[in-house]
């Protein structure tokens, strides 16, 4: 294994182990999602959702839950000197970006594993749209992981870091949300899943993921300079 790959695996494993042991972010994100679903039920005065309304409620909730996790992503690095460790190690510093983004991706997928079935249970007539939804979830999570890691790494070294992430991240993920809801809307339609422009939206998501992964990977080095 090259040093970069070893470092990547090590950082990722450490992060996952730490999360499994302390269970700080994941339960909070999941609980937040479920509570938010309840709030939407009463806020919209609806017991059944379909189409664009369902897509909107689902993605808005997932996004805000993701922000909770993103806020905490680099806290351990900041407190325990992880940034210094990576600066001293003779490897490409962008490995930290890749590893943290991978960890965030896993958290988001884990969150969705819990939140999406519950959403379906609460609001949807049929779960038929959930299988193709998986593709949308994975692609959207990739984009969210890339941008979330980038913004989080900048916010963690600033004042008011809890405010900075939602403030800067939310406009940045608007195109992602447009594509994700665009793809999800027909999937959750009343008559059964539709695939209206499904491929196009997936391509937009893929493009977003590609661009921001590259940007994040390219600039991360400059973020770690002291």
């Amino acid at each position, binding site marked *: 294994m090259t040093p970069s790959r070893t470092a990547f695996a090590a950082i990722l494993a450490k992060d996952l182990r730490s999360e499994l042991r302390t269970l700080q972010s994941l339960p909070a994100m999941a609980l937040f999602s479920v509570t938010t679903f309840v709030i939407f039920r009463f806020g919209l005065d609806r017991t059944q959702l379909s189409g664009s309304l369902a897509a909107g409620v689902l993605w808005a909730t997932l996004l805000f839950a993701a922000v909770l996790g993103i806020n905490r992503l680099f806290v351990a690095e900041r407190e325990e000197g992880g940034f210094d460790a990576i600066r001293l190690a003779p490897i490409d510093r962008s490995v930290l970006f890749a590893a943290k983004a991978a960890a965030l991706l896993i958290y988001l997928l884990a969150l969705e594993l819990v939140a999406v079935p519950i959403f379906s249970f609460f609001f949807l007539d049929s779960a038929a749209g959930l299988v193709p939804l998986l593709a949308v979830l994975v692609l959207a999570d990739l984009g969210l992981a890339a941008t979330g890691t980038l913004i989080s790494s900048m916010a963690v070294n600033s004042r008011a870091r809890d405010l900075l992430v939602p403030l800067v991240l939310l406009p940045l993920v608007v195109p992602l949300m*447009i594509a994700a809801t665009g793809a999800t809307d027909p999937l959750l339609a009343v008559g059964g899943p539709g695939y209206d422009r499904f491929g196009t939206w997936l391509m*937009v998501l893929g493009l977003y993921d590609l661009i921001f992964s590259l*940007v994040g990977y390219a600039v991360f080095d400059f973020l770690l300079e002291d």
Partner: protein
Amino acid sequence: MYGKGLRPLSIATVAMVALSLSLVFFYAPLDADQGFIQKIFYLHVPLAITALVGFIVGGVFAIAHLRTGNRKWDAYSYVSIHMSVIFGVAVLVTGAIWAKASWGHWWVWDEPTLVSFLIVFLMYATYYPFRYAIEDPERQARYASVFAITAGAFVPLNFMAVRMAQSLVHPRTFGTANGGLPGEMMLVFLCCLTAIALLWVTLVKFELTAKSASGQVKRLRRALDAPTPGAASRIAPEVS
């Protein structure tokens, strides 16, 4: 020397603006559909194009800053983005006036370009609190450059996504000024675009010159060991 060339530049700007205004009101033919309201577009669209290009330019300066480490590029990037945000306010206000005149509402979600622009504007509006939140000036400059590059990559993606989100039930009722413009209108439009672009460049240069002058004053102050008055601005990078 930032002030060099500022005078010919501003003279050119004044000339172009005067010419453009004259052309808009005395030469450009009246639009068949929109009537007199269409004249807003000679102002609104050049402002929008200039602002967007300005944001991208800010991103390019940011790349230069990260690559060379020279802080002057950060100042260029900041001023470019700052000026484009100000132009962005003008875009949104003139866009709202046009919307009210055309549709009766101050804002419409049906016009994808305007909506895209709003989102871009919101993105860049976070540039200021973002800079403010980072205390160390050197780190602030670096992070701001990262922001400018990320946001620059975001702009085209955003326009694409919003345009795609337009439901096929509501076709775009107003194409951009470039679509199917008769020759005279195109000429007037290009003049206005040149005028607004020149205005942007002039104001950016003006701002940089003012910053540079402040920087020289600080330098003089340091050289004379004179006491410094209040603290410097926390977010606006300095030029010396």
